[in-house]
């Protein structure tokens, strides 16, 4: 589904990603772990097409199509979804209206008419239930005054609504208490199927107890320095990242 080859990217001549290779197949869950500043969030932003990052070498290919010239919205229409570490507050625009706009813009891009209001409401209700979201929450302004947990739950709600092929969860566990974490992880697991894929970006192993990865990659100084199965995550949890730094320094 996703093939990243020798990806170099950075911001204002400062190279952050220094040759990433990663292949994600449909039905898989990949975890990307690594210390702060290793380039995890940059990788997520580059896949989603954030314009301030410049790709200097290599490619990101989704289902055989090079995304080089695609804008963030085009990537979204092609099925990429990024759950933000810090979701943005949009006062005056309700969660419901925001989702209506997002869904219908996606349909417009595919040459479809707006989703009938009745179907939209049903879909919103169903997905809200999946994430144990109260209906009152849906009429509040997007992310405005939301707690950390509410913001993250709302991100996964948006993911449920948009039904992406590839979802990237950037530090979705940060700021979540154990109950919220379980709800969010449950939601992701219910949305997971053999045709889509998930990349979980996290500093800690905690979230991976709930969203179990098929593969774990360790990112360090802009490169994937180690890949393995979920046992690698346990190893990192025990040893921390210091051994890694020493290993790469050698």
């Amino acid at each position, binding site marked *: 589904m996703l093939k990243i080859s020798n990806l170099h990217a950075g911001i204002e001549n400062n190279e952050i990603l220094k040759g990433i290779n990663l292949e994600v197949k449909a039905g898989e869950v990949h975890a990307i772990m690594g210390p702060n500043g290793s380039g995890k969030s940059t990788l997520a*932003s580059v896949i*989603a*097409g*954030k*314009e*301030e990052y410049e790709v200097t070498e290599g490619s990101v290919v989704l289902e055989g199509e090079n995304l080089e010239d695609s*804008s*963030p*919205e085009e*990537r*979204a*229409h092609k099925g*990429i*979804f*990024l759950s*933000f570490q*810090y*979701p*943005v507050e*949009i*006062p*005056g*625009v309700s969660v419901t*209206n*925001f989702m*209506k*706009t*997002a*869904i*219908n*813009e*996606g349909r417009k*891009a595919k040459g479809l008419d*707006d989703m009938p209001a009745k179907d939209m409401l049903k879909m919103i209700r169903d997905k809200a239930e999946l994430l144990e979201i109260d209906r009152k929450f849906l009429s509040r302004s997007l992310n405005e005054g939301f707690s950390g947990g509410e913001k993250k739950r709302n991100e996964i709600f*948006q993911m449920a609504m*948009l039904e992406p092929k590839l979802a990237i969860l950037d530090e979705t566990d940060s700021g979540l208490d154990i109950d919220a974490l379980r709800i969010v992880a449950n939601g992701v697991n219910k949305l997971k199927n053999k045709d889509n894929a998930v990349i979980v970006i996290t500093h800690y192993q905690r979230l991976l107890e709930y969203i179990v990865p098929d593969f774990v990659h360790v990112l360090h100084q802009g490169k994937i320095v180690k890949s393995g199965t979920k046992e690698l995550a346990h190893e990192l949890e025990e040893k921390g990242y210091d051994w890694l730094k020493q290993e790469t320094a050698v």
Partner: protein
Amino acid sequence: MAFENNIDVEHPVHDIRSEAFKNFEEKGFPTKKEEAWKYTSLKSLQKIDFSIFPKEVNALENKQVKKYFLQEIDTFKIVFVDGIYSSFLSETTHDGVDICLMSAALTKPMYKQYIDVYFNKVASKDDSLTTLNTAFSREGAFIYIPKNKMPKKPVEIVHFSTGNEASLMIQPRNLIIAEENAELQVIERHQSLTTNEVLTNVVTEIFAAKNAIIDYYKIQNDAKTASLIDNTYINQKSNSVVKVHTFSFGGKLTRNNLNFYQNGEYIDSTMKGITILGDKQHVDHHTLVHHIEPNCESHQDYKGVYGENSTGVFNGKIIVDKIAQKTNAFQQNNNILISDKATINTKPQLEIFADDVKCSHGCTIGQLDEDALFYLQSRGIPKKEARALLMYAFANNVLESVRISELKTSINRLIAEKLGVRLGFDL
């Protein structure tokens, strides 16, 4: 401009008019040399040969202008076409309250008591454009709400210009009086229906007696060849609440002179505005709150979004007299520039002579947040729509205090139209 030929010497307020004219003759139009007009030039307007008084009455069909009125709710309407009253488009009343015409108020004996007490009493006697209006205005709205009364529905004051004259200058004059405990909602709009030049120099005097509540909404969404100089003077007595909302999306040149005088205690004066400009549009907000007595509040919150070659000015003056202790005065002006060529000049002007007051002011000029833009785009919302959503999010809290929900809907539509987007829902 040959104004003097048109003076009616028999008129009951003739003395006031001739004095005003004398003042205007001395001062003339303001120039950029004056501090208050530093960023707004009337020069190009003065070059236009405006007709001061239109020659014939122009009839308008209801269906031509329907969209400029609130449609979902019923309202009283005082409508003018090229400065002349249109009884056909209007709905006035004398049932318990007076919602009618300035010309009637100035000439009918039953209104003399109000004219004597209120006419030209809060309007400036030396501001040149105000005196120009005082000298030459012939028509406008007159609203009198007696003690404890409230009209059944909001009042719309609408001025249309038909382009019958190549270039037309209109000088409407409004007088609005709310007695003790009275309540009133007014929506004022100026609308040119063609691309001929129009210059409106309007003066509105508002008197709010004790405990009166007035909501005044100005919709400035005129054609690109229409200019507006709005001079509004508000005199408030104790415990009264007056809120003025100004929505500036259209027009060529707009100057708002909004002046509040607090002649009592526990007064609340609120000024809010949303300005969204493009093209070469220019809007200048000059506000003044004069805190004359103790224990009063004033709130100002103006949001501006400037694109293309547009220019904006915000100048907020707050005067707190020595005896006006315990004054709370807040002022906020936030702006977003969405083009390299757009300009905003913003300036708070505080003159505080009392020592026990709370005054805060803040102005910001920024750009759209790139991270927020990316967030919306990553959800599949195209850049143009995403930018529009962010601009809306930036400005919309000003709408919270709009108390007529149909008006709020209508303003939201104007905003979406101005931003050129269809968001799939009413904002």
